[in-house]
């Protein structure tokens, strides 16, 4: 089977953010991550495109994405002191949305840096 080759892929496992990785992937998973270190290989090879988890969970029960977004917005809106935290394993674009959301909520905003 032919694998799709992606040159100069970026690894976001550690702060080195190596941008010279060659990935060999089919539709479901990455088979090879050339030039990546042990940590990077594990990072790329352990994620698949399978539907391994439900779209969303509300109180432990499976739910749709739309329901979960409504529930999340309700909880955040009702709170007096909501906290937006983490933002490590995500993109800058998502981080920007988080900052704006925390601003609208009048809440707290923090990342791993403070640990």
């Amino acid at each position, binding site marked *: 089977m032919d694998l799709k080759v*992606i040159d100069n*892929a*970026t690894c*976001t496992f*550690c*702060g*080195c*953010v190596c941008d010279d990785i060659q*990935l060999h992937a089919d*539709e479901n998973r*990455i088979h090879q991550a050339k030039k990546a270190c*042990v*940590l990077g290989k594990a*990072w*790329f090879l352990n*994620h698949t*495109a*399978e539907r391994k988890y439900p*779209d*969303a*969970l509300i*109180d432990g029960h499976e739910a749709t*994405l739309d329901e*979960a*977004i*409504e529930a999340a*917005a309700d*909880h*955040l*809106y009702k*709170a007096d*002191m*909501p*906290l937006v*935290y*983490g*933002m*490590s*394993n*995500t*993109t*800058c*674009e*998502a*981080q*920007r*949305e988080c*900052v*704006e*959301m925390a*601003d*609208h909520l*009048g809440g*707290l*905003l*923090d990342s*791993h*840096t*403070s*640990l």
Partner: protein
Amino acid sequence: MTCTLGEVKNRADFIVYWGGNPAECHPRHFTKYTLMQKSRFLPRGRKDRTMVLVDIRETKSVKAADVFLQVRPGKDFELITILRAMIKDQPISDAQLAETGLTREQLQDFVTRMKAAKFGVFFFGMGLSMTRGKHMNSAALLTLAAELNAFTKFVAMPMRGHGNVTGADVIMRWQTGYPFGISFNRGYPRYNPGEFSTVDVLVRGDTDCNFIIGADPGATMPKPAIEHLASVPTIVLDPHVTHTSKLARVHITTAPAGISAPGTAYRMDEIPMPLRPALESPYPSDEEVVRRIKETILKKPDWMGERPQMLTSQVG
């Protein structure tokens, strides 16, 4: 006072790792940026560079070092202060030296090497910034780097872990003026680590709703913080059902960044890198989900009323 890893690769002939284990935590740091690369200014690569490791114990990184200085645990601040004095030829007592666990000869040799370097760099890890003294240790090391510039070129850079945590700092600085530990509850950003930083806030039980993205505090934080996460509504966005998801009221599965979600991530020297995802995910990206939650909140009446200084009016 810092620089890019490209400058380190091309120019740094004296490299100090302080309180970190790059051989195991950043495996390609040596080969890609700091030690092994040859350049116009360092044509013999590793032979033209000197590497010093300062740590409390022997790790795998010791093998890569020319000099290993084993500092006594919790005495980094004292050691840095002594070095700051020694570069200015100020007297140091034997008792002060004994506290660090190092000898006068070792430190004199270190100081001579630092001053003789053409381009020196301190890479400091969590062994410095997260142990006794915390950010005061980092501040002391930055001061030492600044003061060494009276003799030669010297810079300092934190060794960041956790993927895009550097990006989080950069984005928060850009949007709010502060890098982390921010409160918007007066309608404008305020910065006060210790008061607004997550561990402290959770341990005190200050929040009544937690939104967790790209992190798993349920696996890493102290027990009182985890108990608080479970006691109020917590919302988790993650590619996996994590420890935190199991305590949470709402979990949303998202596409992993860089594997099936596109975007940007910052390298530890604050260089942004585009991501090239290899897989199509059945799940939406973090960006899309956060935007949709934000838009749902925005449809509700603003609890604060008129706000002329919103970030949206600055960056749309």
